[in-house]
């Protein structure tokens, strides 16, 4: 059974069709690339899957369960985490607090979160992840005081905090310097090797082509192609979508 099944997903903004009947499956343990020109519906796809936007039609199944139209917090608790193209952090909270927020709502009840004070386990995990990402020394800084690249890493770290089964990365390399790109690619490959499943939206073709074994191409809200990096690179439809006829 596929980990994530997207069936015929549709999203309209008034009369504009951002997604029209997109279907795709994500298999456990894979690292799937999603590419397409600007405005092709990639981020809208993520938003509809994670509950940030309610889809207009179609279904999203996660581990066989229909999660279509669930609120974002419910989707997260089921094990889907994501990062954002435009960084979304809690600027006036420390790096460590940003990480802890991302862990605290995964389990337990509302009341247990009021009564349980002990956080050693979460703090240790957060510190290990920050260590892994190389920003551990910044843990007591406010998130707003971090550089752009460090904020991207924190955003990525938060997505890992809840130990999710599926991580959706929305242009993690955009605006990041080449050293940091290599750094991030290394992290993704290593985590993928440990069993994390990723879906990656990325404009940097080198990155997508080297990381992903399977790529899906969106154009104007429709899925126009799917295949290995080599197949995608030779697909005339894809070239049309990017460069026009």
């Amino acid at each position, binding site marked *: 059974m596929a980990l994530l099944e997207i069936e015929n997903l549709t999203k309209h903004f008034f009369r504009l069709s951002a997604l029209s009947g997109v279907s795709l499956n994500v298999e456990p343990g894979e690292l799937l690339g999603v590419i397409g020109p600007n405005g092709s519906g990639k981020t809208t796809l993520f938003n509809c899957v*994670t*509950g*940030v936007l309610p889809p207009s039609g179609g279904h999203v199944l996660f581990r066989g369960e229909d999660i279509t139209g669930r*609120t*974002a*917090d419910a989707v*997260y*608790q089921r094990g889907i*985490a*994501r990062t*954002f193209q435009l960084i*979304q*952090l*809690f*600027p*006036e*909270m*420390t790096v460590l*607090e940003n990480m*802890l*927020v*991302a862990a*605290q*709502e*995964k389990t337990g009840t*509302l009341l247990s*979160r*009021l*009564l*349980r*004070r002990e956080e050693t386990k979460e703090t240790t995990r957060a510190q290990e992840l920050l260590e892994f990402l190389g920003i551990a020394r910044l843990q*007591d*800084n*406010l998130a707003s*005081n971090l550089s752009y690249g460090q904020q991207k890493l924190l955003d990525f770290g*938060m997505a890992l*905090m*809840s130990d999710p089964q599926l991580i959706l990365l929305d242009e993690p390399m955009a605006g990041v310097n080449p050293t940091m790109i290599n750094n991030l690619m290394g992290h993704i490959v290593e985590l993928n090797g440990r069993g994390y499943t990723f879906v990656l939206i990325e404009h940097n073709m080198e990155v997508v082509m080297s990381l992903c074994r399977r790529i899906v191409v969106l154009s104007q809200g429709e899925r126009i192609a799917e295949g290995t990096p080599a197949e995608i690179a030779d697909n005339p439809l894809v070239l049309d979508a990017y460069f026009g006829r």
Partner: protein
Amino acid sequence: MARARWPLLAALALCLLLPLVLDQYKLYVLSLTLVYVILAIGLNLTLGYAGQISLCHAAFMAFGSYAVAILGQHGVPFEMGLVLGVALAFGWGLVLGFPALKVKHHYLAMVTLGFNIIVFLVLRNWESLTGGSFGISNVARPVWGPVSFKSDRAFYFYILAWAAVVVASAYWILHSRWGRAFRAIRENEMRAEVVGVSLRNYKLMAFAIGAAYAGTGGALFAPLLGYIDPGAYTLDRSIQFLMMVVLGGLGRFEGPFIGALVVTVLPEVLRGSEGLYLIIYAVAVIIMMLFMPKGLVGLWDLAWRFSKSRTSPSTSSASLR
């Protein structure tokens, strides 16, 4: 945040000792300040921490005041009135939380503002229950068998005890995971939801707990004055609480203490200047807002940073938390 503990204990010690030296009127102003601290802590939780604007704090306060006043007329003990008032405020806080799930910022301000006006009108027009514009006089102070809190001094200590309960419980809540979730919602609502924070649960709770504190303050306010009427629960009063919280420092635990003290004591100090006092007061507030956008707590931060940078030049501003 742990450094908030010592100033708190110092303030408590000061509040215990002050009645020895204060005359009756000053003791009254101090009692009123404590009541306002309780109310401001509630609004700081809703607005300062969770970022949900509320302009109906005086309406929540009214539930507490009228519950103890009306039940007191029928000989019901003060504490039962207080519990009922707090429960009513909590319930209506939940109800007011629902619009906060749909609207934000100034739209939410309009909704809560409207609620304050409705409550005021109900208090004024439901004469059989509330006494209408004449209000209710001789609101009884609590009596525990042989122990009476009727004297101003005794009632001051009674208020102080409740203030301690409110401060301790607010400290507990805001330093739990709820406090972190509240701040996350204030900082970035969408991101908070995407890391699993239930906006519904926490926004409703932020409103309801803030309202419950307002109910507590209101319940103590009525017997302190001994007389209540709808005029005490208007929008003006809600804005006064807003001012306390903003002046003190939004989303800072120390904020409500400083804000309530300034907003209550400053007009008293300026009273000597006759008609000018409102103008001086207003100008003082404008100046404070212009130069201390983070509230008076911001001054404390500056002083702290200054003293730290002198002792150890290498510490960065980021270690302030």
